[in-house]
């Protein structure tokens, strides 16, 4: 900005207050640290639950990737399962045809999913109508499902991909029957990706995403390149979903068409809504809630757990996510304000 009208140095207190406000979101909150401590503790305290816990973490990571585009970029999708499924298949195929080394499979799955995100992302920018977006994403996911179904010479079709074998992690940790290595692996990958995602959503780029979600008209008039910004987060989200899919393949050593089915995309939406949209941990917390509920409902009525899950979702949506979600925050703010006064 021209110095002609910004000559006077601003008082330091104002600058400090501004800095405090800008760093507010990036600061580590006690609840976050507690969350990761619990996650680490679960590894040691629940050794016989490692298989279930791996499933939860993978679902949580998948939901986290969805949160990046729904919660932070405001783009609704019904086809996020496409990236998950692609990642799962790429990881499986890598282990069969290329190398059984897990990290390579993970990286290739991530790249493939991100590439698909980059390729299909522009379709979302055609028209900012939610319905078109829903349908285009759904269409892409369905196309992929059909493709995997038809290309049975490559994917095994409806029988699933057989013969996935994964080498020990880093050449040392064998993937065991109890899922201990698997859980540790999933947990660490998820932790690292969460850190990266956290860094991105609290960066200037993340701020511009929030601005676009809040008011795209204004963002444009400020010269923010809305299209490329949305495309970038879409591809990044696809990358994470692809990694989640790869983790599923590598920890279960099997891929079936189920990874691309519509219910994956619907389930992950449900998970995210259970946990809450737009604060990054919603996916992980939602995954825990989802699996617990699913277990509980399945025990009550084995075949019809979907009914109760639907009912829970219905109630959550009717009451309003915001109201449930902001309740603790509003309380905190009130306490905080009183403390200051």
């Amino acid at each position, binding site marked *: 900005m021209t110095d002609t009208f910004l000559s006077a140095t601003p008082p330091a207190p104002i600058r400090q207050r501004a800095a405090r406000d800008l760093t507010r979101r990036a600061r580590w909150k006690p609840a976050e640290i507690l969350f990761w401590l619990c996650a680490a503790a679960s590894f040691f305290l629940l050794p016989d639950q490692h298989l279930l816990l791996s499933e939860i973490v993978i679902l949580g990571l998948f939901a986290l990737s969805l949160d990046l585009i729904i919660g932070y970029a405001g783009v609704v999708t019904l086809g996020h399962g496409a990236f998950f499924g692609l990642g799962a298949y790429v990881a499986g195929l890598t282990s069969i045809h290329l190398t059984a080394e897990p990290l390579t499979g993970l990286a290739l799955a991530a790249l493939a999913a991100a590439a698909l995100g980059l390729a299909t992302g522009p379709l979302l920018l*055609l*028209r900012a109508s939610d*319905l078109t977006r829903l349908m285009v994403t*759904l*269409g892409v996911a*369905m196309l992929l499902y059909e493709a995997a179904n038809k290309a049975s010479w490559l994917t095994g079709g409806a029988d699933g991909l057989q013969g996935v074998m994964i080498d020990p992690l880093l050449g040392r940790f064998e993937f065991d029957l109890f899922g201990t290595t698997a859980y540790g692996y999933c947990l660490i990958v998820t932790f690292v990706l969460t850190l990266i995602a956290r860094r991105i959503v609290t960066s200037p780029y993340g701020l511009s995403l929030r601005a676009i979600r809040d008011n795209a008209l204004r963002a444009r008039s400020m010269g923010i390149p809305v299209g490329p910004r949305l495309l970038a987060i879409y591809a990044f989200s696809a990358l994470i979903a692809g990694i989640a899919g790869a983790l599923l393949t590598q920890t279960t050593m099997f891929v079936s068409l189920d990874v691309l089915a519509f219910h994956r995309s619907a389930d992950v939406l449900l998970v995210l809504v259970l946990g809450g949209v737009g604060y990054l941990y919603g996916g992980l917390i939602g995954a825990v809630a989802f699996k617990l509920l699913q277990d509980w409902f399945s025990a009550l009525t084995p*075949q019809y757990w*979907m009914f109760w899950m639907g009912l829970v*979702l219905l109630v959550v949506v009717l009451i309003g996510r915001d109201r449930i979600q902001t309740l603790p925050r509003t309380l905190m703010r009130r306490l905080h304000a009183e403390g200051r006064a």
Partner: protein
Amino acid sequence: MLTILIDGIAYGMLLFVMASGLAVTLGLMNFVNLAHGAFAMIGGYVTALTMNRMGLPFLATLPLAFLVPALVGMLAERTLYARMYRRSHLEQVLFSIALVFMAMAAADWLLGSSQMLITLPGWLQGRFEIAGIAIGRYRAFLILVCAALVIGLQLLLSRTRFGARLRAAVDDQRAARGLGINVGGIFALTFATGSGLAGLGGALGIEIMGLDPTFPLKILVYVLIVVTIGGTATLTGPFLAALIIGTADVAGKYYIPELGAFLIYLLMIVLLILRPQGLIAPAR
């Protein structure tokens, strides 16, 4: 060749009858109702059950297949949907997905997961020939019934007082209320009609698409495609889209079966790229 075309048209007409309710709730009321297929399923089950268990003739069940989903729809609109009109599309999506889950599980629980079969009356079975073209009797019946419904619907919306009131209520709710129009009532009636039509479509479609608890999801994709491609500004758009999709699906399955459902999704994406506003774009 022409037989396939006629099959395709019959299928497309059926799709349109099921999708028309969705086009109205989406286009006029701006509500993304993914549970639309659930009402179609209710209609299907009403017909199947009244025929198989109570021995009603096929034709006599059709009014019921309209009325029951319409009543359920009205009830659901008043108690649940009305609260969701002002919410974001994401919340509407979730809300209606929840309804789909519940409807599917409930149908499975009450009626079992097996396919429902019905026996059509003799005069609707078999084929007849006109100028050497074999036409399924039921297909011809479908085309006639659906065409009558389409014309009736178009007249209802464009010519009647109800249609005018609905359009007024959609354009400006507050102004419509000021004119003494019962906006809530109109929305409920519209929703009920849409649900009823879906139900009727479900009943008519048992013979063609089958009927089991996963029906809401199966049909959802098709009706959504029809509405998205057609656009929601007019009913003509979805009608054309339904015919295109119906014909393409039937022809595709016949000529290039290895492509399967591929063709439909590809067609949808291509059409959306070419005409993002729908086949018939809203006038500006």
